[in-house]
């Protein structure tokens, strides 16, 4: 029952977006987030939405699948919308009911904020849909490496992520096995109120944790036996390299940023 959980949400493919260097995708996602905060007019929001649609099309991901990634935060969206609608003071009052006032400004602001959140989420899910977690780890390590001198443990973080990726499926398998074993002995994981259920989880969690610690011990010894001694002097089999596609992506994202910045401030300058 736990076997069909896929790790991350990688959707394999060979589109332009899939083939970009993971660092490019990470940096472009960050730059896009900056661009989102430059937007202030309906035109600029239109451009951002259009751009996101274009990226989804180019990545050849199923459209509905990408949209579904917004679902987990619908409650946050709703709250954001309500708070802005009801608390923003403004002149044009659209609707009033006792102490609740809906203004035109509030409605606009609420919609804008929600749009920002949605775009942010869509864009970062395109990143995780088109990049396998393993490659993403390499990208993060490589981007963080320059910050080592200020104490960012780039290699250690990447190693932790690698080991997590390796062992999560194994631990899920084990959970499944223990669950079956305990069910056979009469344990009940499905019924009862919350407190009872948490209590019933103990016979599952304790063996699982003991097992995980034993694994960690074994793995540490096995890694040491294979000459592991931290990130110092380590080489990598796959070396990341930027190609012409990556330059195209950077140019596009910078054009977008400057375009939006111009729409916001440039018009005043002229």
């Amino acid at each position, binding site marked *: 029952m736990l076997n069909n959980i896929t790790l991350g949400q990688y959707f394999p493919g060979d589109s332009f977006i899939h083939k970009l260097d993971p660092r490019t995708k990470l940096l472009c996602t960050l730059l896009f987030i900056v661009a989102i905060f430059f937007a202030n007019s309906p035109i600029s929001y239109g451009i951002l939405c259009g751009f996101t649609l274009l990226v989804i099309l180019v990545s050849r991901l199923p459209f509905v699948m990408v949209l579904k990634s917004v679902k987990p935060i619908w409650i946050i969206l709703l709250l954001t919308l309500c708070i802005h609608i009801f608390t923003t003071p403004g002149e044009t009052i659209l609707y009033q009911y006792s102490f609740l006032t809906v203004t035109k400004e509030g409605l606009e602001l609420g919609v804008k904020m929600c749009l920002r959140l949605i775009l942010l989420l869509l864009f970062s899910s395109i990143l995780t849909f088109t990049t396998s977690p393993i490659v993403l780890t390499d990208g993060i390590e490589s981007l963080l490496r320059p910050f080592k001198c200020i104490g960012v443990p780039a290699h250690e973080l990447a190693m932790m992520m690698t080991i997590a990726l390796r062992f999560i499926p194994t631990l899920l398998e084990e959970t499944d096995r223990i669950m079956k074993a305990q069910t056979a002995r009469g344990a009940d994981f499905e019924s009862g109120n919350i407190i009872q259920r948490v209590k019933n989880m103990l016979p599952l969690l304790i063996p699982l944790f003991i097992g995980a610690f034993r694994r960690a011990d074994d793995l540490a010894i096995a890694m040491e036996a*294979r000459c592991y001694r931290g990130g110092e002097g*380590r*080489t*990598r089999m796959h070396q990341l390299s930027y190609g012409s596609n990556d330059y195209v992506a950077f140019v596009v994202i910078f054009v977008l940023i400057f375009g939006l910045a111009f729409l916001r401030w440039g018009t005043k300058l002229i």
Partner: protein
Amino acid sequence: MIKIENLKHYYKDIDGNEVKALDGVSLSIAEGEFVAVIGANGSGKSTLARHLNGLLVPTEGKVTVNDMDTMDEDRTWDIRQSVGMVFQNPDNQIVAAIVEEDVAFGMENIGVPSAEIRPRVDKALAAVGMSDYAKHAPHLLSGGQKQRVAIAGILGLEPKCIVLDEPTAMLDPQGRQEIVATVKSLNKEKNITIVYITHYMEEALQADRVVVMGAGKIQFMGTPKEVFCRVEELEKLGLEAPIAAKVASELRKCGAKLPKDIITEEELAKALCQ
């Protein structure tokens, strides 16, 4: 290749008492040799294995690998590169989420240049017959396949010796077969020294020399024939000789005239039909 002189190792248990895991072991292993180590639970086999690449260091005595002392911290990484180790649990020694990445792990650690790693990974996977699985996720492989991946990860480091600590204990018969065949071919074709710890006597039969451990000491050793015909002594140490040797021994007790060195079923059958 490996010299062990009067090796003693004491653990401290939780109450602070000393546990004598190894109590004066002397053994020397020649280059290209295939040595099997057998012994009951707790006889000190794993402790001995971990001294061979400096994972543990002697409380007393000395272990040298190609004249490098395992106590010498400057040589630890050279020693671990020349003596690779495969452990019992196939799951807990694979580090990366893709087979080929895991094989590359050791080489990355010792700083092999990136361009060289790729061909060495392919060669190592080919040597254990796992080339088709290079891009697979380790958790989807069978136990025997996982152990072969672990062996490939060590081969990438181009070791002189591989120590295997009960590599087949968690495998099904087919997986055990695969591992024994792989280890044997590495020994014969690449002249890699093998130290093979096992509870399965049939596996130990494949070795050039069998070392029998008991109570932290080497009880006796010799060729498989010399060791396995000592049925009663083995039994006293909590070990079971191969079935053929046991049957032959019982038959001899009842007066049958059988040669003393029967250890395989074929030999027994031949002797009986004469």
